[in-house]
């Protein structure tokens, strides 16, 4: 018996217990809905955290569609903004020939703790300075920031954390910490200085192919 035959015999003991075939379609529907909700929630939280400068514009674009530019998946993309009321906007854009929508919104928090709704341009400006992390079609984990696409799949440490130094659109450095949230997404912390020892961070330029 060859080593391959031995190996296959040993691992033939493994069998999944799950009845996968009956659930694929339903799971796809659930997952799609879930991920859409996750994206909207993340954008809102992101905007709340990032809008702390106290700078507020009085622009009210209620009911009016705006055209803006966003960096999405490493590409500068024209988006149409629809004001949804509340703190939310819908950004509509075309990617790979398909129309996509992304919900986002946020408030800036003044020194006195007062909250002011972010305008679409402010929101877009903030979003352009911040990284997105997604798994691509091959399951690779990619960081998108400005025009950079960085594969961090194999750069999570033993604690399941990946730390990367990015260069933002404004040329400044951002110190990014990525942790899987256990639900198919990622928890991101992006700061202007290292959260911990700077030597623990990988420089993005070393990972860009």
């Amino acid at each position, binding site marked *: 018996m060859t080593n391959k035959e031995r190996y296959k015999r*040993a*691992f033939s003991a493994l069998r*999944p217990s799950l009845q*996968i075939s009956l659930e694929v379609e339903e799971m*796809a529907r659930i997952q799609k809905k879930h991920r859409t909700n996750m994206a909207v929630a993340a954008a809102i939280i992101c905007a709340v955290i990032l809008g702390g400068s106290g700078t507020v514009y009085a622009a009210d674009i209620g009911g009016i569609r705006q055209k803006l530019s966003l960096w999405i998946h490493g590409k500068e993309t024209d988006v149409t903004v629809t004001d949804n009321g509340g703190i939310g906007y819908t950004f509509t854009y075309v990617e790979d020939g398909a129309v996509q929508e992304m919900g986002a919104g946020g408030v800036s928090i003044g020194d006195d703790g007062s909250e002011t709704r972010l305008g679409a341009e402010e929101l877009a400006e903030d979003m352009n300075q911040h990284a997105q992390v997604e*798994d691509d079609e091959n399951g690779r*984990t990619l960081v998108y920031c400005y025009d950079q696409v960085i594969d961090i799949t194999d750069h999570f440490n033993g604690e399941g954390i990946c730390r990367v130094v990015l260069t933002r659109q404004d040329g400044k450095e951002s110190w990014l910490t990525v942790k899987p949230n*256990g639900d198919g997404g990622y928890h991101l912390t992006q700061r202007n200085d290292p959260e911990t020892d700077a030597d623990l961070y990988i420089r993005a330029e070393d990972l860009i192919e």
Partner: protein
Amino acid sequence: MRQEVQELVALYQDSLFAVAFNLCKNAQDAEDVVQDTFIRYYTLKKEFDSKEHIRAWLIRVAINRAKNVSRTFWRRNRISLQDYMETLTFETEESENLFETVMKLPEKYRIVIHLFYYEDYSVGEIAGILNLSESNVKVRLSRGRTLLRDALKEEWKDDE
């Protein structure tokens, strides 16, 4: 080209489960990986060059998903590898020893060994799936074999 998901499930369910288990060391996590891999195929609507292209893509996605699951803080506390092994039926004691020894190898050797010995992939194909250089795959394969030979003695031949 595309193949029906049901057809792929029948063809590759066991194979994807084995490769995912190889990395996760946990049956429930591996099942989640298999399910997620087929969902990804179903929702992506990606066109493939051939059946072999589909197989390699599914394995690559399962490996990447399994790595993701393995590093998450949200990993469920489930039964240990040892306890799970007691639920498996091995044909021989030799098979059980081999299984246990492989699962104790470092991950970077384990996955290369699995793709070579279980999936019958060549060094070049493994390099493509894992996004490594061929020389890197050769080194990992060689070191993995050495560790298996040292641990299994006469139960692991020098055939390749």
